[in-house]
């Protein structure tokens, strides 16, 4: 079970430290983050209205929504300020060769 549902979403070389990258998988959109060489993944859609967080501003370990300035902790998905009230879903990330994989539920 623990090892199921890993899907490749990007090449490792597509993202460098301090970057956020939006990736699409079928109908779903994810955001990949490189925090000092460590990779993290969340949903790309803000929980407030319709915005892609990959178009926002990655400020250290915080992603800020480009639409209304809502902020989330990248590592946990935790809401940090209004107008967002709902946490962001996070995903486990692993590296297989040059492939970045995330674990879906």
């Amino acid at each position, binding site marked *: 079970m623990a090892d199921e549902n890993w899907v490749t979403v990007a090449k490792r070389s597509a993202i460098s430290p301090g970057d956020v990258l939006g990736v699409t998988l079928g109908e779903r959109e994810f955001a990949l983050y490189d925090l000092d060489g460590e990779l993290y993944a969340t949903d790309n859609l803000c929980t407030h*209205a319709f915005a892609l967080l990959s178009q926002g501003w990655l400020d250290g370990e915080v992603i800020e929504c480009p*639409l*209304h*300035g809502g902020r989330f902790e990248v590592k946990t998905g935790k809401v940090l300020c209004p107008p967002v009230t709902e946490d962001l879903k996070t995903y486990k990330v692993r590296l297989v060769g040059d492939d970045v994989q995330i674990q879906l539920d």
Partner: protein
Amino acid sequence: MNETARHIVIVGAGHAGGVAAATLRQTGFAGAITLIGSEPYPPHERPPLSKELLAGAIPVEKTYLRPLAFYADNRIVFHPGETAVAIDRTAQRVTLKNGDALSYDTLLLTMGARARRLSLPGADHPRVLYLRDIADSLALREHLKPGVRAAVIGAGFIGLEAAAAARKRGAAVTVLEVQREPLQRVCPPEIGCFMADLHRRNGVELRTGVRITAIAGADDALALYTADGGTVAADIVLAGIGAQPNVELAQAAGLAVDNGILTDEFGRTSDPHIFAAGDVTRHFNPLLGRKIRLEAWQNAQNQAIAVAKVMAGGNQPYAEVPWFWTDQYDVNLQIAGAPERWGELVWRGGVDNKAFTLFAMEGGIPVAAITMNNGRDMRAARELIARRRAIDPARLADTQVKLQDLAKESAGG
């Protein structure tokens, strides 16, 4: 006085009132809190009222700041559908429409603003509508369907957002604006033109330089008469011609009022027992060095937080660069600062692009900024404006230079 015996009464349960009540509790205020609001709904945010709610994309509950149960759970006595009609400052008492009187130790006024009414012959027709609250939004939405001709008077933010939502619902929309471009009071003309194009591309008939002189209502159609002798036919009219602060209660009580309840940067009115926050205030902003009245989410949210903290014993002023956003179709426009005019402009990216940022400069200092589909620049832009330091316009214009790096330099240097 024993803190737990203190009673704070809040008049106005919109955005600022709701935020203030919650903040008082979060800050540890242990006394009694009573929240009085004319509307039947719990405190809520208004931005969706001209966007998602009007388009029919979200339920009403989605606009609530918190679920209704939050107030009772936090010992906030909430009176929905109740209006304050008088303040007796000597007795420190508020009278409600139902005749009840409430004694307060401290009073917070968060009565917001209301839609300015048209003063034209025929404007009292029942299908001439306004858009301020949930009831307005739901009533307007009822009319917006395919085939319906909607005429919007005023190409300000509310009018344009409503036009976008009406298009989404399939209505035929004509926007009538007396100025040469939309948003002329708040944006440079380039932005007004950009937004005009956006609406035209989305099928809105946008007519500028048009003054409506009268409205005639037959049973099934309305006619809007223009100053140049023309007429515009419509099934429904929305007037989005601005808002005016709900100051009458404060004025009748003898508080200092001048286009808003006058307050300092702590939200204090001319009466030491009475505070105010949100759209209803004309408050001193230390960053701008002047008094300003704002109608924006940020001000309702953050001024309310700041003032509630002062009421609970804090001493931090409210001092932020004003910030506003609007969403229309797939466009997000944000404005920071409140310049009296948009003089010298520095562009990051051209107006031909889908995404760009621009700054208004005064004596080499950035005083205001606009981001078009470029919200990732906004926080840094606000920081740069707050610093009030001169900045090399060539670097500000250079999209290779990160705005965030400029903001850091400006903070350090």
